[in-house]
């Protein structure tokens, strides 16, 4: 019978007998989860060929093999309700899929051939390149102001850096890519040195060794070990205002930090981000001040790790590990007339955080939350495997025990010291997506007050604070505020 669960004894095994890296989590679940990871990604796109890593991955996951066309693969996967999915970030490309144990051999045979014997068929290339272009030109530019702003913020911060383009690429580069480029990227980067096999669930004895032996046939070259530096940003605040015909104003802001999951101060900064703006939670400061107290928008959050598609997800997808991260504040769309007020409110609250740090009570409650929330993040077999692969990448212990032990050691003083060390607003980058870009630009340049009107009485404390916020000076030089037509973004 089909019966899931019973993860009674999951053990974690790093390493493998061959030259292939692997993270194995054998268990008793009747599901088997694959996460086949390559430590390569869009930061390895050659200049002028941005989007190549992502297009290569989609050619494997959504294209035919040498022996099967893609429609034949779809046909074969259909009765198993299984799929092969790809995800590409700067330094990681992962292929994921889960199958019921009853279908393991059939599913694995397809997955193996898709990754090891790709067909690179012209009809797949035409379709997938067009999909990538339409994703940037239509879906991202024109249907989701929040993701548009967030992704443009990363491009602004990492301009001139290997991280400086969207993972899907640039429209102008994608238009020039060829199927030979894809085959060349595959040959160069899909190597045993870059490979880590992730496998979890009730797979039979000997299965992992078989997968390792199969994938061990990839070219035996060392990993693409590359050091990515902190971006060299000009000092001062810079603002990009993307202009498009939209009814509200989306805001994202942030700056690079020198902290990632392996850093000494990571747990301290993770605690700060959770306290200030836990993703999709009312349990955070910024949300309570902007949404709960003022009704400005749908939510307000803060991050120290890249979290794409956050409007669709309650918890982040694993395997987007990066050497370089940013501190980011996401203000969800506000009514257009409140755009400048909302930006000022975000900056005002951020400056207060940096100035005052967090209280003992906030420290303790957030620490307790994060300690337990680690179990929520790793509820599923797929998530546990994904986090284990990320831990291997960052060279840290298993995630839940790591974060719990790091949090247990922290003090409020450590957290406030980490704020002072890492949260510096002298290189802030801000992106707004709005209809009336010039009016917002003029209001910021001329420091025009931006009072807010409410539909109900507010406590005196809020009204007094509003007076400070509405005139809060955004220190930016006029030449550092740029209006960007949406058609230029991701071009």
């Amino acid at each position, binding site marked *: 019978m089909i019966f899931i669960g019973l993860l009674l004894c999951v053990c974690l095994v790093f390493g493998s007998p061959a030259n292939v890296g692997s993270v194995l989590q054998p268990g008793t679940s009747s599901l088997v989860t694959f996460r086949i990871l390559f430590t390569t990604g869009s930061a390895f796109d050659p200049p002028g060929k941005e989007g190549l890593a992502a297009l290569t991955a989609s050619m494997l996951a959504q294209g035919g093999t040498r022996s099967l066309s893609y429609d034949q693969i779809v046909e074969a996967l259909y009765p198993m309700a299984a799929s092969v999915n790809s995800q590409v970030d700067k330094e990681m490309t992962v292929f994921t899929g889960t199958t019921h144990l009853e279908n393991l051999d059939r599913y694995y045979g397809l997955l193996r051939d898709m990754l090891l014997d790709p067909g690179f068929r012209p009809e797949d290339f035409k379709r997938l390149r067009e999909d990538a272009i339409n994703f940037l030109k239509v879906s991202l530019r024109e249907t989701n102001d929040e993701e548009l702003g967030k992704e443009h913020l990363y491009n602004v911060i990492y301009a001139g850096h290997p991280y400086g383009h969207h993972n899907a690429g640039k429209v102008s580069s994608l238009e020039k890519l060829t199927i030979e480029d894809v085959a060349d990227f595959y040959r160069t980067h899909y190597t045993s040195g870059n490979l880590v096999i992730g496998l979890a669930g009730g797979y039979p004895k000997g299965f992992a060794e078989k997968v390792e032996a199969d994938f061990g046939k990839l070219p035996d070259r060392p990993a693409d070990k590359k050091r990515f530096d902190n971006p060299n940003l000009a000092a001062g605040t810079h603002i990009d205002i993307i202009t498009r015909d939209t009814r509200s104003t989306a805001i994202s802001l942030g700056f690079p930090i020198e902290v990632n999951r392996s850093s000494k101060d990571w747990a301290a900064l993770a605690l700060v981000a959770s306290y200030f703006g836990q993703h999709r939670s009312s349990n955070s400061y910024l949300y309570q001040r902007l949404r709960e107290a003022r009704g400005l928008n*749908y939510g307000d959050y803060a991050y120290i790790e890249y979290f794409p598609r956050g409007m669709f997800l309650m918890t982040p997808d694993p395997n987007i590990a990066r050497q370089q991260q940013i501190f980011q504040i996401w203000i969800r769309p506000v009514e257009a007339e409140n755009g400048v007020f909302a930006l000022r409110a975000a900056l005002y609250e951020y400056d207060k955080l940096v100035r005052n740090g967090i209280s003992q009570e906030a420290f303790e409650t957030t620490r307790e939350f994060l300690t337990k929330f680690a179990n929520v993040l790793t*509820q*599923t077999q797929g998530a546990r495997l994904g986090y284990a692969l990320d831990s291997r990448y960052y060279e840290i212990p298993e995630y839940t025990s790591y974060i719990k032990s790091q949090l247990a050691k922290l003090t409020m003083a450590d957290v406030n010291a980490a704020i002072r060390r890492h949260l510096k607003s002298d290189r802030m980058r801000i992106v707004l997506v709005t209809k009336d870009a010039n009016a917002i630009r003029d209001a910021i340049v001329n420091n025009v007050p931006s009072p807010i009107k409410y539909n109900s009485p507010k406590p005196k404390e809020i009204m007094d604070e509003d007076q400070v916020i509405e005139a809060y000076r955004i220190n930016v030089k006029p030449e550092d505020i740029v209006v960007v037509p949406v058609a230029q973004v991701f071009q």
Partner: protein
Amino acid sequence: MKKFLAAISVLCFAAAVPAQQKETRLFPYNYTIDDLDNGLRLVTVPTDFPNMIALYIVVQAGSRNEVEPGKSGYAHLFEHIMFRGSEHYTPEQRDRILKKAGAESNATTNFDRTTYYETFSKEDLEPVMKLEADRFQRLKYPEPAYKTESLAVLGEYNKNSADPTEKLDEVLHATAFNRHTYAHTTMGFLKDIQDMPNQYNYSLQFYNRFYRPEYTTILLVGDVSRDQALGLTKKYFGDWKRGNYVPDIAVEPPQNAPRTAAVDWNSPTLPWLAVAFRGPAYSDEKIDKAALDLLSPIAFGPNSELYQRLVLKEQKVDELQPDFGNHPDPELFTIYSRIKDPKDVDYVREQILATFERFSKEPVDQAKLDATRSRIRYSFALRLNSSSAIANALAGYIGLRRTPETINRLFALYQRITPQDIRMIANQYFTPNNRTIVTLTSKGAKD
């Protein structure tokens, strides 16, 4: 695309058919049902996933229940207001308790139900149950907080408004339904959302009507026993007073001609097309809905002849998605498609219509039907990968029938359906008079 994905997942686990196996149960967990005297129902599903508990509270009130003109969007508004404090807990106290529990907490609303959920460590079950009981029985929100929260709802409308499929869906329902409340989306009409701040008293009435035990089912899944669940439910929800309101939801009269609508979209987009037919209501006894559930992926899924031609071979379309959710009243069987070139809109529409017509006349291939049953069965199994995923998979069925058993009954129904049944039902529903087509294009893009 969020709603399309949601719709697909509903379909995937809605359906359930065996291929090789002779099983009669799709939902593999043992569960218990306990009914309190006040009409409240408790469903407890112990699982082997350790330490965590998922608490889902399902209220059988969604935008379908919004019967008064000018009052669309209130079920969804309530999803927000329920976080604005109750007699014994301010919103800040509530946040503190859930923060201490390390809980993931949120709520969702759709046509037919509103679902509140928390996932948390098992030691926090009692404080969370106590907290939830207070807001369901003694919600207390001052008018200024109500007005402020109505702006957060407007913020939600705003964040969605850049997406043309939101508008497509709104116009589709407004066109396909004249009397039934499925004519408005769950988000509601913008003018009604903008009027919400003035409707504090109506909001109180909405709460008193629907936040009652007879509309509500508590679902506890995970590292929990029936005794523990029942004890806490009696302790904290036992005194909840039964209500007496039953909404008079208008029956949609039969459609007597095909309908069309066109949306001019302000910013650049690829054209969207929604081709919809009135479909049957959910049933685990009558074959109508179940037969079309099976047809949906065969005719329009990634393995269908139409998908493979339009998306993979001709490459004229980059999205082709069937949407056919489970609802207590008849709703729509819709095919959404995004077309790469405006000049192909007419061609794609004709191809979709020809596919509906084909399956109204031809029986589906037996092998494809078997493969679809297998797919649905594994799809459901693959979903049940944590206690919260199990609760999430159950919530829709709880909203319809208040019991997980309906899944197994539906599974048994699927086993009985033949290619001839599917053809007969398709022929009955996919008629021109049942049809609504909406096209969305950038202003000036077509012609």
